[in-house]
């Protein structure tokens, strides 16, 4: 009892009925998972859920308070819940405000590797034909500087971009000179197999703070099987280049990602262990994308989405074991999904946006000056379909490329809030659109959820990650560290 002169709790409780905020729900094992408009979730018993939607929930119950605190319901004309929801919605979608932040320069199509999963490279000595010219690079850079984003990232890709190092040097130096007179930050990253890297290049990367991203598909046998090159020495060259790059740039300036082929599926643990052995603090498990490789290769290296998910679950299990033993190792895709699930923030990852990130979060400047809405878009073009070509840096103005019909159509048709099968999916606030994938696999931008591999994969991953998070305090700790992007020790007790 409160003292004299104070009101009891009942005095402050709402008396009327309540109304619903937008939310979505799904059956989750024996409970109901409810997710609100901005991605906050609650598990409810079937009984509580029935009472909630039947508007029979008593205001004195803990479930009522839970649902109110997480903005599933409101019971007065107070403005705060609306204000908070609006702010949270803006925060989740804040990357839209800055427009295109990632600018990919394909400085050459040439590569000395001939990976089965890659269609966008040529083993060729014809520089004239497959390298980006100085003029093309300059014009592309003009477009980068037109982007309203206050912080842009320029990523060099190929082919093997180091085969046209001179162009990289020019672009970096020119961009650095230009930011002295404009309010813009520029980050650089080069995606390279490291096989051809030299001291000169590394010193340049160090001086201009260019990050290096490389490919490591696993232990030597898997890596070399996936990534053939003359001499079958891709693994040895990558490892040598890696240690060299770390020496010059610092250990953490080099990241790696892996692509799983049919061969990889058998050995998830060995692949994860290889990343630990090589001293990486993260691993990005990626399936094959269905663009790059020829149909005939599909039988040899391809697999079904369910086969991939089996692989992913095993690899993630291994990664969690390693973290439990005290060694921090982040799985990058889980990190992206968990950030979307567990934090008020969005992610910049272009393949999980709504509207889709293609063109508005990322733009690709191909070696020949063509501008594409995404890396996948130019792969599709290499296969003969230029549907997602936005224009050409030598022929078109910024307004025509980034405000033209091609991009407007992608954006208008890639809002998953309006897609059949997505609009009422509980996971919508955590998910995103990949219209280029839908088009490549099904012929239209919207796609068909019941048969979509993208849907199958994400429905499975959201459930799997939630299950792990719910069932195990250690995993909660590990996932929290991933989401915050800090080593686990930062979250650990050390009195």
């Amino acid at each position, binding site marked *: *009892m409160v003292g004299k002169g104070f009101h*009891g709790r009942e005095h*402050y409780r*709402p008396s009327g009925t309540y109304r619903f905020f937008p939310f979505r729900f799904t059956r989750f094992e024996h409970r109901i998972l409810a997710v609100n408009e901005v991605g906050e979730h609650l598990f409810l018993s079937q009984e509580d859920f029935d009472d909630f939607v039947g508007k029979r929930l008593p205001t004195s119950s803990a479930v009522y*308070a839970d649902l109110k*605190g997480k903005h599933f319901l409101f019971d007065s004309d107070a403005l*705060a819940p609306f204000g*908070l929801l609006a702010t949270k919605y803006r925060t989740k979608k804040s990357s839209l405000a800055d427009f295109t932040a990632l600018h990919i320069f394909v400085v050459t199509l040439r590569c000395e590797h001939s990976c089965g999963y890659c269609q966008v490279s040529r083993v060729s000595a014809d520089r004239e034909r497959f390298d980006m010219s100085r003029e093309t690079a300059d014009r592309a850079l003009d477009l980068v500087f037109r982007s309203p984003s206050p912080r842009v990232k320029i990523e060099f890709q190929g082919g093997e971009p180091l085969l046209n190092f001179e162009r990289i040097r020019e672009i970096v130096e020119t961009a650095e000179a230009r930011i002295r007179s404009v309010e813009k930050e520029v980050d650089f990253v080069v995606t390279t197999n490291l096989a051809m890297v030299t001291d000169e290049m590394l010193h340049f990367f160090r001086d201009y703070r260019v990050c290096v991203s490389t490919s490591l598909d696993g232990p030597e046998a898997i890596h070399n099987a996936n990534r053939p090159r003359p001499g079958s020495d891709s693994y040895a060259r990558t490892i040598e280049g890696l240690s060299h790059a770390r020496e010059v740039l610092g250990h953490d300036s080099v990241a790696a990602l892996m692509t799983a082929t049919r061969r990889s599926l058998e050995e998830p643990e060995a692949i994860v262990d290889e990343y630990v052995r090589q001293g990486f603090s993260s691993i990005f498990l990626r399936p094959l994308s269905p663009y790059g490789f020829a149909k005939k290769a599909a039988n040899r290296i391809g697999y079904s989405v369910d086969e991939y998910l089996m692989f992913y679950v095993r690899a993630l299990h291994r990664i969690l074991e390693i973290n439990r033993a005290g060694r921090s190792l982040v799985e990058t895709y889980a990190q992206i999904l968990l950030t979307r699930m567990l934090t008020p923030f969005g992610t910049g990852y272009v393949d999980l946006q709504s509207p889709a990130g293609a063109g508005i979060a990322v733009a690709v400047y191909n070696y020949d000056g063509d501008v594409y809405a995404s890396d996948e878009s130019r792969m599709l073009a290499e296969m003969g379909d230029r549907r997602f070509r936005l224009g050409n840096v030598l022929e078109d103005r910024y307004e025509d490329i980034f405000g033209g019909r091609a991009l407007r159509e992608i954006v208008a048709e890639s809002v998953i809030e309006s897609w059949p099968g997505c609009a009422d999916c509980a996971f919508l606030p955590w998910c995103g659109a990949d219209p280029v994938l839908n088009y490549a696999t099904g012929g239209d931008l919207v796609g068909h959820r019941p048969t979509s591999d993208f849907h199958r994969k994400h429905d499975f991953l959201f459930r799997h990650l939630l299950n792990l998070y719910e069932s195990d305090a250690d995993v909660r700790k590990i996932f929290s560290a991933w989401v915050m992007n800090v080593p686990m020790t930062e*979250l650990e007790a050390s009195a």
Partner: protein
Amino acid sequence: MKLAAHAKVLNLTQPVIGRVTTRPTEDRVCRRDEIFLSPNGQAPPELTGFAAWLLPNSEEGVREASVPAAWGVPELGYLADGDVVAIAPNGWTRVLYRRSSPHNTILMTEQCNSYCLMCSQPPKPVDDQNRITEHLRLVELIDADTAELGITGGEPTLFKDDFIRLLINIREKLPRTALHVLTNGRMFYYRRFAQRVASVGHPDLMLGIPLYSDVDFEHDYIVQAAGAFEETVLGLHHLARYDVPVEIRVVLHRQTIPRLVRLAEFIARNLPFAAHVALMGLEMFGFVHKNLEEVWIDPYDYRQTLREAVDTLVAGGMNVSIYNHQLCILPRELWRYARQSISDWKNVYLDECAPCGARSRCGGFFQSGVKRHSRHIRAIEM
């Protein structure tokens, strides 16, 4: 340590505020701001120009004083150069500022628009708006090298214009001093007021704002004010919009513990801009005694809830501190978040604490907490 006492006075017709000094300057203009302190009774060569003469432990020569004089307050014998003292004509002598203390605060007003169940400093319905004159004077006298200054109440933002005036004065006179304001944040529901505070441009300002639940009716019950949650939460967002740093303060008691983890989730999701979250033990002052059964809970009994709430906040990227908790009742994992937060004139230790190996790192107790404390206080072997 007493911060006020009744002195005998002479020649005092109006209130005097001054900076204490034991070293007389020749500069008469400076002397107008100074109260000459005779700790052991030695009279200065001459007193002309001083605002007053203060003799805590003596009355030697005081009858001949040519300036206002106050004596017979041995409780204030600790006063030293740079401290600021106010002497009323009736002899009531208050220490407004101690240069050696890291915990100086300005009590803006005793009035408040909330009436919290566990308020440690219950509001008084007095008309004290004219206190602002004293506060502005105090700011002129405080040492410019003061590291931190607090503003508290009551509710310091009740008189909005005075509050802004005080902030501007502090920014001008004490540009190197960190300023920490304890406010319920309700006034910032008015966006324009949040904007005005921001436009003062204080370089090191932090507003400490309490939030007690993720649900409006629970918070409103605890602060005994319908609509308070609405005002505080929107106020926090208005402050964030204008980049005014805020700290969320949660007092842990029987009414806040049941939803503490949900509150932690709420803060991480809705107030991620907060620079700091302080989880604070109950002070056994004021209204706590009126509502003891309603608010008292042995901290030992909520330690697992506290741990879960801290984990949730930390996982949400929040910067967390635990205040007013003894280390022996906290899980070891939480020690790194525990701060020795109790103001230096308030904290004490129990007999049980004498052999404790963690004592030097422990915040101890409020003086008021000695009578009522956890039943699990014990010495720790390190």
